[in-house]
């Protein structure tokens, strides 16, 4: 990831001059955004800075009033999270979006079940449980989550970290472009957070770029390659964990420090 490579690289996901107004409130004020292949990009910002509006615009939950979103260099317009999902963008929501009473396998395939071939599938709409269970087992093993013994056990019987693992596995299994993770460690204990951070690295190392939204600065500084700092509806800096300290990051985020005054500059290259 040298600086020279950056100039030739095309961002996997890019937002240009995004504007979103809610009445008289401007949540996004000509905001830019870039995610490059193979990186974990953290997005930090104070409450009300517009970072969740930014993420929602990128994953289709909000339609920006102005500006352009490019996926792999191609302009896209998502009018629902489903469309973003179909385009290869998976989101791990803060509340995980899992169905507690359903099994792990059912949850992994919720909304995109596999049907059997031939008559049972086409006419009786029968699900291919065998295939689905096998796929679920494979995906969980790949991410080292097979301490979960039984793929057909209900999600509600899992611990918080294991549930997070299932949600991450679902996103990683079906994303073809990138994964968005919204506060993945917010509800977890120390050990479970550790496990999830490792999981984030695993997914990244397997070639899947990740957008990580978090308020937890130590976690951000630990796993992010670059950090997008959002303030007052726009990106005011891109910093890196090895050039900026957490205190400097927070100072930029809250307006206490002008990012241009920092020796590393306001916009770090990849």
């Amino acid at each position, binding site marked *: 990831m040298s600086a020279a490579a950056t100039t030739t690289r095309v961002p996997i996901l890019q937002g240009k001059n995004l504007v979103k107004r809610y009445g008289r409130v401007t949540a996004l004020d000509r905001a830019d955004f870039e995610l490059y292949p193979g990186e974990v990009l953290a997005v930090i910002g104070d409450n009300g800075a517009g970072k969740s509006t930014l993420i929602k615009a990128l994953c289709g939950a909000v339609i920006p009033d102005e500006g352009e979103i490019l996926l792999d260099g191609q302009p896209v317009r998502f009018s629902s999270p489903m469309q973003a999902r179909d385009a290869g963008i998976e989101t791990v929501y803060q509340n995980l*979006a899992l169905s507690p009473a359903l099994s792990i396998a059912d949850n992994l395939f919720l909304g995109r079940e596999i049907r059997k071939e031939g008559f049972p599938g086409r006419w009786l709409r*029968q*699900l291919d449980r065998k295939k689905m269970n096998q796929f679920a087992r494979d995906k969980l093993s790949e991410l080292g989550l097979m301490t979960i013994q039984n793929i057909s056990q209900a999600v509600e019987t899992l611990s918080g970290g294991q549930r997070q693992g299932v949600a991450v596995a679902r996103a990683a299994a079906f994303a073809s472009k990138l994964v968005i993770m919204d506060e993945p460690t917010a509800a977890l204990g120390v050990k479970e957070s550790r496990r999830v951070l490792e999981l984030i690295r695993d997914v990244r190392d397997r070639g899947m770029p990740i957008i990580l939204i978090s308020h937890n600065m130590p976690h951000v500084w630990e796993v992010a390659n670059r950090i997008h700092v959002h303030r007052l509806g726009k990106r005011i800096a891109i910093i890196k964990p090895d050039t900026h300290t957490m205190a400097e990051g927070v100072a930029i985020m809250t307006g206490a420090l002008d990012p241009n005054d920092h020796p590393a500059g306001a916009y770090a290259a990849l």
Partner: protein
Amino acid sequence: MNSDQEPASPSRRMQEFETVLEQSDKRVAEFEPQRRSLLQNLQHFLHGNPTAVPVIVLILGVGVFGLIAGDRFLSTFNMSLIIQQVSIIGILAAAQSLIVLTAGIDLSVAAIMVLASVVIGKFAVVVGVPAPLAILCGLVLGYLCGMLNGLLVTRIKLPPFIVTLGTWNIFFALNLWYSGAQSIRSQDIDAEAPLLKLFGEGMLIAGVKFTYGSFLMVAIFLVLWYVLNRTAWGRHVYAVGDDKDAAELSGIQTDRTLRSVYAVAGVICAIGAWASIGRVGSVSPQSFYEGNLESITAVVIGGISLFGGRGSILGPLVGALIVGVFQSGLRIAGVDVLWQVFAIGWLIIIAVAMDQWIRRVSA
């Protein structure tokens, strides 16, 4: 700058306070065979097998009444009679189960059924529409009634209880208006459209007549079991009832699923309408006035959670049979009817209390 932390390999980095984790007890994230008391084991078993309670109650009920009332209760004839008696409420309970699985409630099931039976009867007997076409009209009407419920629940976002409380009255009024509060007599049906009474017919098994209506009820439950457990739609029904927001974020079109559930329930009610003409022998606009509450009773006793997303569809079949067994057993034992009502009341309360307890199962 945190240059004191050498980031040689990013995966080796951790927070300072976390370095002690290496030596700490790591067992939290693992599954351990915990020691459980007998009661906890029971709770876990019932959590995984929500139909076990109603099945046990049914077996106990049959056993106890068998001892008290003897062969008069246990005879094949009486068993066939019980199934016959619960068949219509059973079919309504099948429709009700679908709604309850989505965390809703449908007070209009019986009203849809009676309205459909009046339309089928009047079309076939009075208007002179061919019987199969009249039945089809009834099914379409059931679909439309269910769809109306579904649209009100999903588009106007009203609670299912209120929507169906309203449509219950609306459908009942329409039924009285269209029928003129007049029954259609049995002999007129026999003369004009005997097909309407098909489900009152039956076949002999071990010398005892089992009606086609009884088979129909069982068949509806088996088909629903397949659909709910083996198709994507069925999984979506459970997911929507379990946590609607999560289902939506998972990419399920929850409102569409809900509407389809109400529509299917309406069609099942209309099938029940056809079966009810065979069961009752005539078409009466005043019949099954409390069918909605009886169907809810069967669903609740059958172990389907009123909070949605939990329970097996076969539970309400057992629930309906439990009600039938209690009624028959207490009657044969010579107990006053009011005590049957009394017993059913306690069954409902105990069933819901059990559900609450089972849901509190610790992970």
